[in-house]
Protein backbone atom coordinates (compact mmCIF):
# COMPACT_ATOMS: atom_id res chain seq x y z
CA UNK A 1 0.00 0.00 0.00
CA UNK A 2 1.27 3.46 -0.91
CA UNK A 3 0.22 6.19 1.50
CA UNK A 4 0.58 9.93 1.00
CA UNK A 5 0.35 12.06 4.13
CA UNK A 6 -0.40 15.73 3.38
CA UNK A 7 1.27 18.06 5.79
CA UNK A 8 0.56 21.71 6.30
CA UNK A 9 3.08 23.92 7.97
CA UNK A 10 1.34 26.03 10.63
CA UNK A 11 2.20 28.41 13.48
CA UNK A 12 2.75 26.66 16.78
CA UNK A 13 -0.46 26.63 18.86
CA UNK A 14 0.99 29.05 21.41
CA UNK A 15 1.72 31.71 18.76
CA UNK A 16 0.44 35.23 19.17
CA UNK A 17 -1.33 36.14 15.96
CA UNK A 18 -0.44 39.50 14.40
CA UNK A 19 -0.96 40.94 10.96
CA UNK A 20 1.34 43.15 8.90
CA UNK A 21 1.00 46.92 9.32
CA UNK A 22 -1.10 47.23 6.15
CA UNK A 23 -3.33 44.35 7.42
CA UNK A 24 -2.75 42.43 4.21
CA UNK A 25 -1.02 39.34 5.57
CA UNK A 26 -0.20 37.23 8.60
CA UNK A 27 2.95 38.55 10.26
CA UNK A 28 5.29 35.59 10.66
CA UNK A 29 7.92 37.51 12.63
CA UNK A 30 9.07 35.40 15.56
CA UNK A 31 6.55 32.63 14.83
CA UNK A 32 7.58 28.98 15.23
CA UNK A 33 6.19 26.68 12.56
CA UNK A 34 5.18 23.08 13.23
CA UNK A 35 3.45 20.13 11.57
CA UNK A 36 -0.28 20.85 11.71
CA UNK A 37 -1.50 18.94 14.82
CA UNK A 38 -4.24 17.12 12.85
CA UNK A 39 -1.59 15.89 10.41
CA UNK A 40 0.61 14.62 13.23
CA UNK A 41 -2.09 12.15 14.20
CA UNK A 42 -2.40 11.04 10.56
CA UNK A 43 1.35 10.66 10.16
CA UNK A 44 1.59 8.50 13.27
CA UNK A 45 -1.29 6.32 12.04
CA UNK A 46 0.58 5.92 8.74
CA UNK A 47 3.75 4.90 10.64
CA UNK A 48 1.76 2.15 12.28
CA UNK A 49 0.61 0.93 8.85
CA UNK A 50 4.20 1.04 7.64
CA UNK A 51 5.43 -1.07 10.54
CA UNK A 52 2.55 -3.52 10.78
CA UNK A 53 1.35 -3.71 7.19
CA UNK A 54 4.44 -2.89 5.16
CA UNK A 55 3.03 0.33 3.73
CA UNK A 56 5.22 2.90 2.00
CA UNK A 57 4.69 6.38 3.41
CA UNK A 58 5.46 9.62 1.61
CA UNK A 59 4.65 13.12 2.80
CA UNK A 60 3.76 16.10 0.63
CA UNK A 61 3.57 19.83 1.29
CA UNK A 62 2.70 22.73 -0.96
CA UNK A 63 5.01 25.55 0.07
CA UNK A 64 8.21 27.47 -0.45
CA UNK A 65 11.68 26.36 0.73
CA UNK A 66 10.81 27.64 4.22
CA UNK A 67 8.64 24.59 4.91
CA UNK A 68 11.52 22.14 4.58
CA UNK A 69 12.36 21.98 8.32
CA UNK A 70 8.80 20.81 8.96
CA UNK A 71 9.16 18.21 6.21
CA UNK A 72 12.49 17.01 7.66
CA UNK A 73 10.68 16.53 10.94
CA UNK A 74 8.12 14.32 9.19
CA UNK A 75 11.00 12.32 7.68
CA UNK A 76 12.62 12.03 11.10
CA UNK A 77 9.35 10.65 12.49
CA UNK A 78 9.67 7.93 9.86
CA UNK A 79 8.20 8.90 6.46
CA UNK A 80 10.18 7.31 3.63
CA UNK A 81 10.28 10.25 1.22
CA UNK A 82 9.04 13.81 1.01
CA UNK A 83 7.67 15.86 -1.87
CA UNK A 84 7.53 19.63 -1.82
CA UNK A 85 5.40 21.32 -4.44
CA UNK A 86 7.24 24.57 -4.89
CA UNK A 87 4.50 27.21 -4.65
CA UNK A 88 2.88 29.46 -2.09
CA UNK A 89 -0.31 27.76 -0.87
CA UNK A 90 -2.73 30.48 -1.98
CA UNK A 91 -6.04 28.75 -1.31
CA UNK A 92 -7.66 25.36 -0.81
CA UNK A 93 -8.51 24.75 -4.46
CA UNK A 94 -4.99 25.57 -5.56
CA UNK A 95 -3.41 23.33 -2.90
CA UNK A 96 -5.82 20.46 -3.59
CA UNK A 97 -5.07 20.64 -7.31
CA UNK A 98 -1.30 20.43 -6.64
CA UNK A 99 -1.73 17.46 -4.31
CA UNK A 100 -4.07 15.75 -6.79
CA UNK A 101 -1.26 15.81 -9.33
CA UNK A 102 1.15 14.21 -6.84
CA UNK A 103 -1.39 11.52 -5.93
CA UNK A 104 -2.06 10.67 -9.58
CA UNK A 105 1.60 10.55 -10.56
CA UNK A 106 2.57 8.50 -7.51
CA UNK A 107 -0.40 6.09 -7.63
CA UNK A 108 -1.15 6.51 -3.94
CA UNK A 109 -4.11 4.47 -2.73
CA UNK A 110 -4.56 6.14 0.63
CA UNK A 111 -4.21 9.87 1.24
CA UNK A 112 -4.18 11.01 4.84
CA UNK A 113 -4.73 14.73 5.39
CA UNK A 114 -6.02 16.63 8.41
CA UNK A 115 -9.53 17.80 9.27
CA UNK A 116 -8.29 21.39 9.04
CA UNK A 117 -5.15 23.46 9.24
CA UNK A 118 -5.13 25.36 12.50
CA UNK A 119 -4.08 28.59 10.76
CA UNK A 120 -6.68 29.47 8.15
CA UNK A 121 -9.12 26.82 9.46
CA UNK A 122 -10.23 26.06 5.94
CA UNK A 123 -11.04 22.39 6.30
CA UNK A 124 -11.14 22.24 2.53
CA UNK A 125 -8.13 20.51 1.05
CA UNK A 126 -8.97 16.82 1.75
CA UNK A 127 -12.57 17.03 0.46
CA UNK A 128 -11.57 19.00 -2.62
CA UNK A 129 -8.75 16.56 -3.28
CA UNK A 130 -11.12 13.58 -3.03
CA UNK A 131 -13.52 15.29 -5.43
CA UNK A 132 -10.78 16.07 -7.95
CA UNK A 133 -9.50 12.50 -7.83
CA UNK A 134 -12.95 10.91 -7.64
CA UNK A 135 -11.88 9.03 -4.52
CA UNK A 136 -13.88 8.08 -1.44
CA UNK A 137 -13.57 10.47 1.45
CA UNK A 138 -14.08 10.32 5.21
CA UNK A 139 -13.80 13.56 7.16
CA UNK A 140 -13.24 14.16 10.91
CA UNK A 141 -11.82 10.65 10.96
CA UNK A 142 -11.00 9.24 14.42
CA UNK A 143 -10.33 5.61 13.55
CA UNK A 144 -9.01 3.84 10.47
CA UNK A 145 -8.31 0.19 9.64
CA UNK A 146 -7.28 -0.96 6.17
CA UNK A 147 -7.35 -4.57 5.03
CA UNK A 148 -6.58 -5.27 1.40
CA UNK A 149 -8.62 -2.67 -0.42
CA UNK A 150 -11.36 -2.44 2.24
CA UNK A 151 -11.41 0.32 4.79
CA UNK A 152 -13.28 0.69 8.01
CA UNK A 153 -13.32 4.24 9.33
CA UNK A 154 -14.89 5.96 12.30
CA UNK A 155 -15.85 9.58 11.94
CA UNK A 156 -16.90 12.09 14.54
CA UNK A 157 -20.41 13.46 14.02
CA UNK A 158 -22.26 16.10 16.03
CA UNK A 159 -23.07 14.34 19.28
CA UNK A 160 -21.40 11.01 18.61
CA UNK A 161 -19.61 8.90 16.05
CA UNK A 162 -20.36 6.88 12.95
CA UNK A 163 -18.67 3.76 11.64
CA UNK A 164 -18.22 3.70 7.89
CA UNK A 165 -17.20 1.01 5.43
CA UNK A 166 -15.56 2.04 2.22
CA UNK A 167 -12.73 1.07 -0.09
CA UNK A 168 -9.45 2.31 -1.47
CA UNK A 169 -8.59 4.64 -3.10
CA UNK A 170 -9.51 6.80 -0.14
CA UNK A 171 -8.83 10.28 1.26
CA UNK A 172 -9.00 10.89 5.02
CA UNK A 173 -9.50 14.16 6.89
CA UNK A 174 -8.01 13.05 10.20
CA UNK A 175 -7.72 14.35 13.74
CA UNK A 176 -6.95 13.24 17.29
CA UNK A 177 -8.36 9.74 17.74
CA UNK A 178 -6.62 8.31 14.66
CA UNK A 179 -4.05 7.63 17.34
CA UNK A 180 -4.01 8.74 20.95
CA UNK A 181 -2.06 11.78 22.05
CA UNK A 182 0.28 9.55 24.05
CA UNK A 183 1.13 7.54 20.90
CA UNK A 184 2.34 10.54 18.91
CA UNK A 185 5.89 10.05 17.66
CA UNK A 186 8.59 12.50 18.54
CA UNK A 187 11.69 12.43 16.32
CA UNK A 188 14.65 10.81 18.07
CA UNK A 189 18.35 11.23 17.32
CA UNK A 190 18.50 8.21 15.03
CA UNK A 191 15.42 9.39 13.12
CA UNK A 192 16.91 12.83 12.69
CA UNK A 193 20.19 11.37 11.37
CA UNK A 194 18.35 9.06 8.98
CA UNK A 195 16.13 11.87 7.73
CA UNK A 196 19.22 13.60 6.31
CA UNK A 197 19.71 10.73 3.87
CA UNK A 198 16.10 10.61 2.75
CA UNK A 199 14.83 12.11 -0.49
CA UNK A 200 13.12 15.47 -0.40
CA UNK A 201 11.90 15.95 -3.97
CA UNK A 202 10.96 19.41 -5.16
CA UNK A 203 8.43 19.56 -7.99
CA UNK A 204 7.02 22.57 -9.86
CA UNK A 205 3.33 23.43 -9.48
CA UNK A 206 0.71 22.78 -12.13
CA UNK A 207 -1.52 25.54 -13.43
CA UNK A 208 -4.58 26.26 -11.34
CA UNK A 209 -6.40 29.43 -10.35
CA UNK A 210 -7.56 30.08 -6.82
CA UNK A 211 -11.22 30.38 -5.80
CA UNK A 212 -10.67 32.62 -2.80
CA UNK A 213 -8.33 35.39 -1.79
CA UNK A 214 -7.90 36.87 1.68
CA UNK A 215 -7.80 40.59 0.92
CA UNK A 216 -7.24 41.83 4.45
CA UNK A 217 -7.12 40.77 8.08
CA UNK A 218 -7.92 42.20 11.45
CA UNK A 219 -7.67 41.17 15.09
CA UNK A 220 -10.76 40.82 17.25
CA UNK A 221 -11.55 43.94 19.31
CA UNK A 222 -9.98 44.05 22.76
CA UNK A 223 -12.13 42.53 25.48
CA UNK A 224 -13.46 44.47 28.44
CA UNK A 225 -12.56 43.31 31.95
CA UNK A 226 -14.32 40.35 33.56
CA UNK A 227 -17.16 41.08 35.98
CA UNK A 228 -16.44 39.23 39.20
CA UNK A 229 -19.17 37.89 41.44
CA UNK A 230 -18.40 37.08 45.06
CA UNK A 231 -18.50 33.33 45.77
CA UNK A 232 -20.93 33.99 48.61
CA UNK A 233 -23.33 35.71 46.16
CA UNK A 234 -23.78 33.06 43.49
CA UNK A 235 -27.38 34.20 42.96
CA UNK A 236 -25.99 37.45 41.50
CA UNK A 237 -24.42 35.50 38.67
CA UNK A 238 -27.80 34.05 37.74
CA UNK A 239 -29.28 37.58 37.82
CA UNK A 240 -26.53 38.96 35.57
CA UNK A 241 -26.82 36.12 33.08
CA UNK A 242 -30.56 36.64 32.95
CA UNK A 243 -30.93 40.43 32.99
CA UNK A 244 -27.67 41.75 31.58
CA UNK A 245 -26.25 39.07 29.31
CA UNK A 246 -29.74 37.77 28.44
CA UNK A 247 -28.54 34.22 27.96
CA UNK A 248 -30.86 32.58 30.50
Amino acid at each position, binding site marked *: MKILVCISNV*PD*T*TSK*INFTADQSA*FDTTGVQFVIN*PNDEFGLTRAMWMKEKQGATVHVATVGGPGVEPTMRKALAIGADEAIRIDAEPT*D*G*LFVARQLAEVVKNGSYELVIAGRES*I*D*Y*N*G*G*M*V*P*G*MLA*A*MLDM*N*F*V*NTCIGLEIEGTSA*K*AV*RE*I*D*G*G*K*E*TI*ETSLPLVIGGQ*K*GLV*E*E*SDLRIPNMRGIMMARQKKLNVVPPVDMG*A*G*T*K*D*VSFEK*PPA*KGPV*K*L*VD*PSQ*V*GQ*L*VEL*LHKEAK*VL
Partner: protein
Amino acid sequence: MSVLIYTESENGAFRKNAWEVASYGAQLAKAMGTEAVALAINVTDPSALASYGVARVLQVNDPRMDTFNARAAATYLEKAVAETGARVVVVGSSADAKFAAPILAGNLKAGYAPNVVALPESTSPLVVRRTVFSNKGFAHTELSGNTAIIGVSSNAFGTVEAQGDARAEAFAPEVSDAAFGTRSVSVDKATDKIAIADADIVVSGGRGLKGPENWNLIEELAGVLGAATACSKPVSDMGWRPHSEHVGQTGKPVASNLYIAIGISGAIQHLAGVNASKVKVVINNDPEAPFFKAADYGIVGDAFEVVPELIEKLKEFKAQNA
Protein backbone atom coordinates in the same frame (compact mmCIF):
# COMPACT_ATOMS: atom_id res chain seq x y z
CA MET B 1 -29.49 33.18 -10.88
CA SER B 2 -30.31 32.42 -7.26
CA VAL B 3 -28.88 31.70 -3.84
CA LEU B 4 -29.00 28.00 -3.01
CA ILE B 5 -29.39 27.05 0.65
CA TYR B 6 -28.45 23.64 1.99
CA THR B 7 -30.83 22.86 4.84
CA GLU B 8 -29.84 19.84 6.91
CA SER B 9 -32.33 17.32 8.22
CA GLU B 10 -32.54 14.32 10.47
CA ASN B 11 -35.37 11.79 10.79
CA GLY B 12 -37.60 13.67 8.38
CA ALA B 13 -37.31 17.06 10.11
CA PHE B 14 -35.00 20.04 9.75
CA ARG B 15 -32.04 20.28 12.09
CA LYS B 16 -31.90 23.33 14.30
CA ASN B 17 -29.17 25.00 12.22
CA ALA B 18 -31.45 25.02 9.15
CA TRP B 19 -33.21 28.20 10.35
CA GLU B 20 -30.01 30.18 10.65
CA VAL B 21 -28.62 28.97 7.33
CA ALA B 22 -31.97 29.67 5.62
CA SER B 23 -32.11 33.16 7.16
CA TYR B 24 -28.61 33.94 5.95
CA GLY B 25 -29.34 32.67 2.44
CA ALA B 26 -32.61 34.55 2.18
CA GLN B 27 -31.08 37.82 3.39
CA LEU B 28 -28.21 37.38 0.96
CA ALA B 29 -30.63 36.70 -1.90
CA LYS B 30 -32.45 39.90 -0.98
CA ALA B 31 -29.20 41.88 -1.05
CA MET B 32 -28.38 40.39 -4.45
CA GLY B 33 -31.86 40.98 -5.80
CA THR B 34 -32.43 37.31 -6.48
CA GLU B 35 -34.36 34.30 -5.25
CA ALA B 36 -33.57 32.09 -2.24
CA VAL B 37 -33.94 28.40 -3.08
CA ALA B 38 -33.48 25.67 -0.47
CA LEU B 39 -32.44 22.08 -1.04
CA ALA B 40 -34.19 19.84 1.50
CA ILE B 41 -33.38 16.13 1.55
CA ASN B 42 -35.94 13.77 3.09
CA VAL B 43 -37.87 16.46 4.93
CA THR B 44 -41.53 15.56 5.29
CA ASP B 45 -42.83 19.11 5.49
CA PRO B 46 -40.51 21.94 4.44
CA SER B 47 -43.17 24.68 4.71
CA ALA B 48 -41.61 26.20 7.85
CA LEU B 49 -38.88 27.67 5.62
CA ALA B 50 -41.45 30.22 4.44
CA SER B 51 -41.03 32.10 7.72
CA TYR B 52 -37.36 32.72 6.96
CA GLY B 53 -37.80 34.14 3.48
CA VAL B 54 -37.20 31.06 1.33
CA ALA B 55 -38.99 31.33 -2.02
CA ARG B 56 -38.60 27.82 -3.40
CA VAL B 57 -37.74 24.41 -1.99
CA LEU B 58 -36.23 21.60 -4.03
CA GLN B 59 -37.54 18.60 -2.17
CA VAL B 60 -35.50 15.42 -2.52
CA ASN B 61 -36.89 12.10 -1.44
CA ASP B 62 -34.23 9.41 -1.45
CA PRO B 63 -34.27 6.55 1.08
CA ARG B 64 -30.54 6.05 0.46
CA MET B 65 -30.05 9.41 2.19
CA ASP B 66 -31.74 8.36 5.43
CA THR B 67 -28.28 8.22 6.92
CA PHE B 68 -26.20 11.15 5.79
CA ASN B 69 -23.82 10.59 2.90
CA ALA B 70 -21.52 13.52 2.13
CA ARG B 71 -20.57 12.61 -1.40
CA ALA B 72 -24.17 12.02 -2.42
CA ALA B 73 -25.27 15.24 -0.67
CA ALA B 74 -22.58 17.09 -2.64
CA THR B 75 -23.91 15.49 -5.83
CA TYR B 76 -27.47 16.62 -5.06
CA LEU B 77 -26.16 20.11 -4.36
CA GLU B 78 -24.25 20.14 -7.62
CA LYS B 79 -27.40 19.15 -9.52
CA ALA B 80 -29.35 21.83 -7.66
CA VAL B 81 -26.76 24.43 -8.65
CA ALA B 82 -27.24 23.43 -12.29
CA GLU B 83 -31.03 23.52 -11.90
CA THR B 84 -31.15 26.98 -10.28
CA GLY B 85 -28.09 28.65 -11.79
CA ALA B 86 -27.03 29.46 -8.24
CA ARG B 87 -24.33 32.07 -7.91
CA VAL B 88 -23.84 31.32 -4.20
CA VAL B 89 -24.40 28.16 -2.16
CA VAL B 90 -24.93 28.68 1.57
CA VAL B 91 -24.16 25.83 3.98
CA GLY B 92 -23.88 25.53 7.77
CA SER B 93 -21.02 24.59 10.09
CA SER B 94 -22.10 21.15 11.27
CA ALA B 95 -19.78 18.17 10.90
CA ASP B 96 -21.95 17.03 7.97
CA ALA B 97 -21.89 20.41 6.21
CA LYS B 98 -18.11 20.65 6.62
CA PHE B 99 -17.89 17.15 5.14
CA ALA B 100 -20.01 17.83 2.04
CA ALA B 101 -19.07 21.44 1.20
CA PRO B 102 -15.43 20.84 0.18
CA ILE B 103 -16.52 17.94 -2.05
CA LEU B 104 -18.98 20.26 -3.76
CA ALA B 105 -16.26 22.91 -4.07
CA GLY B 106 -13.89 20.37 -5.63
CA ASN B 107 -16.54 19.20 -8.09
CA LEU B 108 -17.46 22.73 -9.14
CA LYS B 109 -13.92 24.12 -8.84
CA ALA B 110 -15.61 26.77 -6.72
CA GLY B 111 -14.15 28.92 -3.97
CA TYR B 112 -15.35 28.03 -0.47
CA ALA B 113 -15.20 30.33 2.56
CA PRO B 114 -16.04 28.58 5.86
CA ASN B 115 -16.62 30.15 9.31
CA VAL B 116 -18.31 33.23 7.86
CA VAL B 117 -19.76 35.48 10.56
CA ALA B 118 -21.80 38.10 8.67
CA LEU B 119 -23.56 38.86 5.40
CA PRO B 120 -21.12 39.72 2.59
CA GLU B 121 -19.67 43.23 2.83
CA SER B 122 -19.91 43.42 -0.93
CA THR B 123 -21.72 41.14 -3.38
CA SER B 124 -19.77 42.13 -6.49
CA PRO B 125 -17.06 41.13 -5.95
CA LEU B 126 -18.30 38.79 -3.25
CA VAL B 127 -16.39 39.54 -0.03
CA VAL B 128 -17.12 37.88 3.32
CA ARG B 129 -15.76 38.22 6.82
CA ARG B 130 -14.70 34.97 8.45
CA THR B 131 -12.78 33.86 11.51
CA VAL B 132 -9.26 32.52 11.00
CA PHE B 133 -6.42 31.41 13.27
CA SER B 134 -8.88 29.72 15.64
CA ASN B 135 -10.75 32.94 16.44
CA LYS B 136 -7.54 34.92 16.95
CA GLY B 137 -8.29 36.94 13.80
CA PHE B 138 -10.70 37.76 11.01
CA ALA B 139 -10.09 37.62 7.28
CA HIS B 140 -11.97 39.49 4.59
CA THR B 141 -12.12 36.92 1.84
CA GLU B 142 -12.99 37.49 -1.78
CA LEU B 143 -14.70 34.64 -3.61
CA SER B 144 -14.22 34.53 -7.37
CA GLY B 145 -15.64 32.27 -10.04
CA ASN B 146 -19.13 31.50 -11.27
CA THR B 147 -20.27 29.81 -8.09
CA ALA B 148 -19.10 30.46 -4.54
CA ILE B 149 -19.76 28.49 -1.36
CA ILE B 150 -20.28 30.25 1.95
CA GLY B 151 -20.16 28.29 5.22
CA VAL B 152 -22.02 30.19 7.92
CA SER B 153 -20.54 29.97 11.42
CA SER B 154 -23.01 28.63 14.02
CA ASN B 155 -24.80 31.25 16.11
CA ALA B 156 -22.99 34.14 14.42
CA PHE B 157 -25.83 35.39 12.24
CA GLY B 158 -28.92 34.18 14.07
CA THR B 159 -32.36 33.83 12.54
CA VAL B 160 -34.23 36.53 10.66
CA GLU B 161 -37.95 36.21 10.10
CA ALA B 162 -39.05 37.12 6.60
CA GLN B 163 -41.90 36.33 4.27
CA GLY B 164 -41.38 33.65 1.62
CA ASP B 165 -43.52 31.14 -0.25
CA ALA B 166 -41.34 28.07 0.33
CA ARG B 167 -42.97 26.67 -2.79
CA ALA B 168 -42.04 22.99 -2.68
CA GLU B 169 -41.29 21.05 -5.83
CA ALA B 170 -40.11 17.47 -6.12
CA PHE B 171 -36.47 17.32 -7.17
CA ALA B 172 -35.31 13.94 -8.41
CA PRO B 173 -32.16 14.20 -10.48
CA GLU B 174 -30.33 11.01 -11.33
CA VAL B 175 -27.82 10.24 -8.55
CA SER B 176 -26.17 6.88 -9.13
CA ASP B 177 -25.23 4.41 -6.41
CA ALA B 178 -21.61 5.12 -7.33
CA ALA B 179 -22.03 8.60 -5.84
CA PHE B 180 -22.36 6.99 -2.42
CA GLY B 181 -18.99 5.21 -2.14
CA THR B 182 -19.07 5.07 1.65
CA ARG B 183 -21.56 3.03 3.64
CA SER B 184 -22.68 3.87 7.14
CA VAL B 185 -22.48 0.74 9.31
CA SER B 186 -23.57 2.19 12.63
CA VAL B 187 -24.20 5.46 14.34
CA ASP B 188 -23.36 5.77 17.99
CA LYS B 189 -25.05 8.83 19.39
CA ALA B 190 -26.39 9.50 22.86
CA THR B 191 -30.00 10.42 22.18
CA ASP B 192 -30.54 11.87 25.64
CA LYS B 193 -27.62 14.30 25.35
CA ILE B 194 -27.31 17.61 23.56
CA ALA B 195 -24.52 17.79 21.00
CA ILE B 196 -21.94 20.53 21.54
CA ALA B 197 -22.54 21.78 17.99
CA ASP B 198 -26.28 22.21 18.57
CA ALA B 199 -26.13 23.60 22.09
CA ASP B 200 -27.07 27.13 23.15
CA ILE B 201 -25.26 26.56 26.41
CA VAL B 202 -22.12 24.48 27.05
CA VAL B 203 -20.85 23.52 30.52
CA SER B 204 -17.22 22.51 30.47
CA GLY B 205 -14.94 20.99 33.12
CA GLY B 206 -11.18 20.93 33.45
CA ARG B 207 -8.48 19.34 35.50
CA GLY B 208 -9.58 21.46 38.46
CA LEU B 209 -12.39 18.96 39.03
CA LYS B 210 -9.76 16.47 40.23
CA GLY B 211 -11.27 13.29 38.79
CA PRO B 212 -14.04 11.69 36.74
CA GLU B 213 -15.97 10.85 39.91
CA ASN B 214 -16.77 14.56 40.32
CA TRP B 215 -18.39 14.98 36.92
CA ASN B 216 -21.85 14.69 38.44
CA LEU B 217 -21.38 18.40 39.22
CA ILE B 218 -20.93 19.24 35.54
CA GLU B 219 -23.73 16.95 34.42
CA GLU B 220 -26.15 18.27 36.99
CA LEU B 221 -25.41 21.88 36.10
CA ALA B 222 -25.78 21.04 32.40
CA GLY B 223 -29.03 19.26 33.17
CA VAL B 224 -30.56 22.30 34.86
CA LEU B 225 -29.49 24.54 31.99
CA GLY B 226 -30.37 22.17 29.15
CA ALA B 227 -26.71 22.41 28.17
CA ALA B 228 -24.17 20.19 26.45
CA THR B 229 -21.17 18.97 28.46
CA ALA B 230 -17.59 19.52 27.34
CA CYS B 231 -14.07 19.27 28.78
CA SER B 232 -10.49 20.45 28.35
CA LYS B 233 -7.97 18.36 26.43
CA PRO B 234 -6.08 16.80 29.38
CA VAL B 235 -9.40 15.64 30.83
CA SER B 236 -10.12 13.63 27.69
CA ASP B 237 -6.48 12.51 27.31
CA MET B 238 -6.60 11.06 30.83
CA GLY B 239 -9.79 9.25 29.97
CA TRP B 240 -11.94 11.07 32.52
CA ARG B 241 -14.31 11.99 29.71
CA PRO B 242 -14.78 10.80 26.11
CA HIS B 243 -12.73 12.45 23.35
CA SER B 244 -15.93 13.70 21.75
CA GLU B 245 -16.21 16.21 24.61
CA HIS B 246 -12.74 17.70 24.09
CA VAL B 247 -13.10 21.31 23.00
CA GLY B 248 -10.46 23.78 21.90
CA GLN B 249 -8.14 24.45 19.03
CA THR B 250 -7.44 20.76 18.45
CA GLY B 251 -10.82 19.56 19.63
CA LYS B 252 -14.33 20.64 18.83
CA PRO B 253 -14.99 24.32 18.27
CA VAL B 254 -17.61 25.93 20.50
CA ALA B 255 -19.74 28.89 19.39
CA SER B 256 -22.55 28.77 21.94
CA ASN B 257 -24.47 31.66 23.48
CA LEU B 258 -23.14 30.79 26.92
CA TYR B 259 -19.96 28.87 27.80
CA ILE B 260 -19.31 28.02 31.44
CA ALA B 261 -15.75 26.89 32.24
CA ILE B 262 -15.20 25.19 35.58
CA GLY B 263 -11.71 24.35 36.83
CA ILE B 264 -10.20 25.24 33.45
CA SER B 265 -7.10 27.46 33.47
CA GLY B 266 -7.71 29.03 30.05
CA ALA B 267 -4.64 27.96 28.09
CA ILE B 268 -4.28 29.65 24.71
CA GLN B 269 -5.27 26.46 22.85
CA HIS B 270 -8.38 26.06 24.94
CA LEU B 271 -9.47 29.68 24.53
CA ALA B 272 -8.84 29.60 20.79
CA GLY B 273 -11.51 26.98 20.39
CA VAL B 274 -14.19 28.46 22.66
CA ASN B 275 -13.73 32.21 22.17
CA ALA B 276 -16.45 32.40 19.53
CA SER B 277 -19.00 31.84 22.32
CA LYS B 278 -20.96 35.00 23.03
CA VAL B 279 -20.85 35.01 26.84
CA LYS B 280 -18.16 33.23 28.83
CA VAL B 281 -18.28 32.46 32.54
CA VAL B 282 -15.34 31.10 34.52
CA ILE B 283 -15.30 29.46 37.92
CA ASN B 284 -11.77 28.92 39.18
CA ASN B 285 -10.12 29.17 42.61
CA ASP B 286 -7.01 30.86 41.21
CA PRO B 287 -7.59 34.58 40.52
CA GLU B 288 -4.51 34.51 38.27
CA ALA B 289 -5.97 31.87 35.93
CA PRO B 290 -5.72 33.26 32.36
CA PHE B 291 -9.37 32.45 31.71
CA PHE B 292 -10.38 35.49 33.77
CA LYS B 293 -8.89 37.70 31.04
CA ALA B 294 -11.07 36.09 28.38
CA ALA B 295 -14.31 35.76 30.35
CA ASP B 296 -17.27 38.10 30.72
CA TYR B 297 -18.25 36.91 34.20
CA GLY B 298 -16.27 35.06 36.80
CA ILE B 299 -16.27 33.68 40.30
CA VAL B 300 -12.99 33.19 42.12
CA GLY B 301 -13.85 30.22 44.27
CA ASP B 302 -13.79 26.51 44.87
CA ALA B 303 -15.83 24.67 42.24
CA PHE B 304 -16.92 22.14 44.85
CA GLU B 305 -18.63 24.91 46.81
CA VAL B 306 -19.68 27.29 44.03
CA VAL B 307 -21.18 24.81 41.56
CA PRO B 308 -23.67 23.11 43.96
CA GLU B 309 -24.75 26.58 45.03
CA LEU B 310 -25.14 27.67 41.40
CA ILE B 311 -27.24 24.58 40.67
CA GLU B 312 -29.55 25.48 43.57
CA LYS B 313 -29.90 29.10 42.49
CA LEU B 314 -30.60 28.06 38.90
CA LYS B 315 -33.26 25.62 40.05
CA GLU B 316 -34.93 28.43 41.98
CA PHE B 317 -34.64 30.70 38.95
CA LYS B 318 -36.15 28.06 36.67
CA ALA B 319 -38.99 27.45 39.10
CA GLN B 320 -39.81 31.17 39.19
CA ASN B 321 -39.53 31.67 35.45
CA ALA B 322 -41.17 28.44 34.34
